[in-house]
């Protein structure tokens, strides 16, 4: 049976460069015009500590997930066979280190796979490149996968990656790569990949991580101020921004903690610049008070939360979707804000642009919920037409008649009041976290408090249907509906696709704006469904808790919370199985 995508795994101990080889291959495939999605898999620490596997799916079709089983695995040492080999597809190929691996441990792998010996270690020693086994593996890959000409692109990438380490390192890596190609061409004969069809598009693609996509998106959206404090897995946002934003005249400030970081961005936004900060759970918790200030004082602001496993310090290097409740509700008092979540790396770029536009348009804090899995995963991204990216301007105050006092917090039909900025004559006012009247003076009058609360929340009535950001996929007539979000979305889409092939019907709705929740769209979606399933990677069912109160039900409906809380991603198969099980129950 032919297939239009190829899943490759490269596994090794730390120091053997599985990850850097994977990164090179991902970039090369993207530049060749293929779609690529990747994942890094660290086994549980207790077993095989320090081992990693880089998984990569390439296809001419969109690659929604990194795939479940591999067609090809390159195992750079013996120990990892035991840990990772059960993820090779039946009929797939394992390339193991012939020179070092005992024949027993290979034979003992009681799998219906093809085991191809490659003398990685010996070859590397022969060419004096003991640390370049990973490049030999890339060479072997290039030698056997003939559908696309990877060679020149991989060399280009090796150059980018190693040029700053000096010529000798660079040359060693290239020699190793070539040695792998030659070995494959000369020695490996019994590999047949003819069922795999890869037809790259002619224009190359970009490749980046979700965190890079966020950082670049911010610059394209016109953001010119960043303040932050390092925290795994969000630090790379700041690291990218620190190198690039100053070139555009922006300021990047390393703050003493997350409270200072967000307050600095509030100051910068008040002073007129688009600004943002990025953090992870513990930082978001510390920012709670300031988020409320931005809501009350009506300061546009973007906060990126690259979620990790929680609660507390939790699992800093693992993904989880555990901060949604906190993002939506984690501030004292009724705080107007918007929460938005991207579904993959490319979406990180576009949702970041949306986040800034929403913040500027509605003058409030916008929290973008990414997570470790999309934030640190590398994916291909279609080249971006930068000129087509719209930057919505804040509604600036324009003083015309000096006798009319400036109503910074004027009550308007949309809830949005024109904003001035320091330096503008005639626009002075006091931004404030106290309840206030239209003139920005403190007021605790019950009527003022009620009217101002309504004003602040009126903005959300408009925001919730903005940017058409509630998407659907699947068969609209299906009686099984999924509602999901963020990084759980792609596996659900792929699971529905698998089910469709088997004749099982399901549909998914995945809002990008999660708060305010677009009630009427949700209710339209559930109208003809009997079952609603909420797949999400947290324990308490955070999106379920937000969506369910919005249901206006005419009939009883079955609600299934599908929570995964072991810090692993959903697999398309899990979704497929759920659909199948429910369809067969009937």
């Amino acid at each position, binding site marked *: 049976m032919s297939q239009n995508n190829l899943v490759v795994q490269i596994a090794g101990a730390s120091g053997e460069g599985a990850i850097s080889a994977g990164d090179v291959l991902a970039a090369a495939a993207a530049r060749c015009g293929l779609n690529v999605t990747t994942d890094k898999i660290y086994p549980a620490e207790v077993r095989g500590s320090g081992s990693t596997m880089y998984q990569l799916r390439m296809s001419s079709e969109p690659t929604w997930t990194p795939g479940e089983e591999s067609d090809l695995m390159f195992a750079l040492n013996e120990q990892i066979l035991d840990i990772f080999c059960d993820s090779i597809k039946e009929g797939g190929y394992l390339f193991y280190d012939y020179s070092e691996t005992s024949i027993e441990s290979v034979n003992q792998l009681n799998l219906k796979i093809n085991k191809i010996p490659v003398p990685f270690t010996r070859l590397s020693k022969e060419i004096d490149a003991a640390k370049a086994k990973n490049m030999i593996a890339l060479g072997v890959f290039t030698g056997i996968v003939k559908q696309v000409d990877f060679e020149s692109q991989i060399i280009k990438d090796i150059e980018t990656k190693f040029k700053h380490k000096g010529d000798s390192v660079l040359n060693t890596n290239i020699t190793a790569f070539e040695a792998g190609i030659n070995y494959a061409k000369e020695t490996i004969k019994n590999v047949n990949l003819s069922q795999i069809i890869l037809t790259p598009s002619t224009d190359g693609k*970009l490749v980046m991580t979700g965190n890079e996509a966020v950082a670049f998106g911010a610059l394209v959206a016109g953001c010119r101020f960043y303040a932050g404090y390092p925290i795994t897995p969000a630090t790379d946002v700041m690291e990218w921004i620190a190198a690039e934003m100053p070139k555009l005249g922006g300021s990047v400030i390393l703050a003493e903690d997350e409270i200072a970081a967000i*307050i600095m961005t509030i100051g910068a936004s008040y002073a007129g610049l688009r600004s943002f900060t990025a953090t992870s759970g513990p930082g978001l918790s510390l920012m709670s008070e300031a988020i409320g200030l931005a809501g009350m004082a009506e300061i546009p602001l973007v906060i990126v939360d690259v979620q990790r496993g929680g609660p507390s310090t939790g699992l800093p290097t693992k993904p989880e979707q555990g901060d949604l409740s906190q993002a939506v509700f984690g501030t004292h008092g009724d705080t107007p804000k918007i929460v938005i979540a991207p579904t993959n790396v490319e979406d990180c770029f576009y949702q970041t642009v949306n986040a800034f536009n929403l913040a500027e348009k509605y003058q409030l804090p916008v929290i973008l919920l990414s997570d470790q899995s999309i934030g640190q995963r590398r994916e291909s991204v279609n080249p971006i037409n930068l000129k087509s990216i719209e930057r919505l301007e804040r509604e600036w105050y324009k003083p015309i008649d000096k006798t009319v006092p400036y109503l910074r917090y004027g009550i308007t039909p949309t809830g949005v009041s024109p904003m001035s900025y320091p330096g503008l004559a005639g626009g002075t006012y006091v931004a404030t976290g106290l309840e206030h009247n239209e003139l920005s003076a403190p007021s605790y009058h019950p009527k003022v408090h009620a009217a101002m609360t309504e004003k602040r929340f009126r903005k959300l009535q408009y925001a919730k249907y903005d940017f058409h950001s509630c998407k659907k996929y699947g068969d609209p007539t299906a009686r099984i509906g999924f509602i999901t979000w963020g990084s759980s979305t792609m596996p659900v889409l792929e699971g529905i696709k698998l089910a469709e092939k088997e004749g099982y019907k399901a549909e998914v709705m995945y809002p990008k704006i999660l708060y305010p929740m677009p009630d009427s769209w949700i209710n339209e979606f559930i109208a003809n469904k009997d079952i609603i399933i909420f797949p999400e990677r947290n324990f308490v069912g955070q999106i379920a808790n937000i969506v369910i109160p919005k249901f206006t039900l005419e009939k009883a409906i079955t609600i299934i919370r599908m929570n995964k809380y072991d810090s692993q991603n959903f697999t398309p198969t899990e979704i497929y199985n759920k659909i199948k099980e429910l369809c067969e129950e009937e």
Partner: protein
Amino acid sequence: MIVEYKPDDYKNHVKPSWCPGCGHYSVFNAMLKAFSALGIPPEELVVASGIGCSSRIPYFIKTYGFHSVHGRALPLSIGIKSANPKVRVVVAGGDGDGFSIGGNHILHTSRKNPDMTYIVMDNAIYGLTKGQASPTSPIQLHTKVNPYESLDEKLNPVLIALGNDTSFIARGFSGNLKELTQLVIDGMEHRGFSFIHVMSPCVQYNTEVTYESIKKNLQPLPENHNVTDRAAAVYLALQKAPMYTGTFYNVNKPTLTDKLNEVRDVAMLQESPEVQEKEMKLLECMMNKFR
């Protein structure tokens, strides 16, 4: 034509709501006079604060203002100043706001040396919350939260600023408007971060730190004090009786704006001349790094 601004031109329609006799009135007046003396247009000034009686000051001044949250006026102002370096930023607040919850930010703001002025109205009490001990309360001051003995030694704001290497450090007194006005002017004219510690009594809740008790112990700094000698300044700041007023320390260092500009210049050297200053070109170059 040069427009002149009188102190009253900086007064807002919201009138100060402090208790009669509160030391903060004097700081308010010193600020208006200093603004006027420096001739700064109201719209080019930002007065930023945290929370407290003292922190209410932005409402009473007709410049840009930001009444933020408790203890965070300094990082707020760093954001304002970096985003909009042309405006003059004055941060004003209390001892609770600045030295208790906000204590860490003085240290880290000093390291960045932004060109702005921070005025702390120190009444050695939490006024707004109706009288609890603050980090500058003398150990013998008993309040409802420490009715018997105090657990905390009071801290010495000038000494701490010296430890932080804040580039301008002075002390004033609400009972001496003339000197105070001059210190605010000097602080604002200083290029860098200036810290002005003002003894500013709370007549409502502090029975120990009063106009009289302060005045008795106050003395101007020795005329021959060298304001660039940090060790000498430390020695004078360590003295408890007399307590000195005036400028303890004043040195020149690159400001945050200077440093941010330098970062931009160095960063730009990474890019080829033809793309520099063309935003779209720069963004495209950045995108192409992902290819």
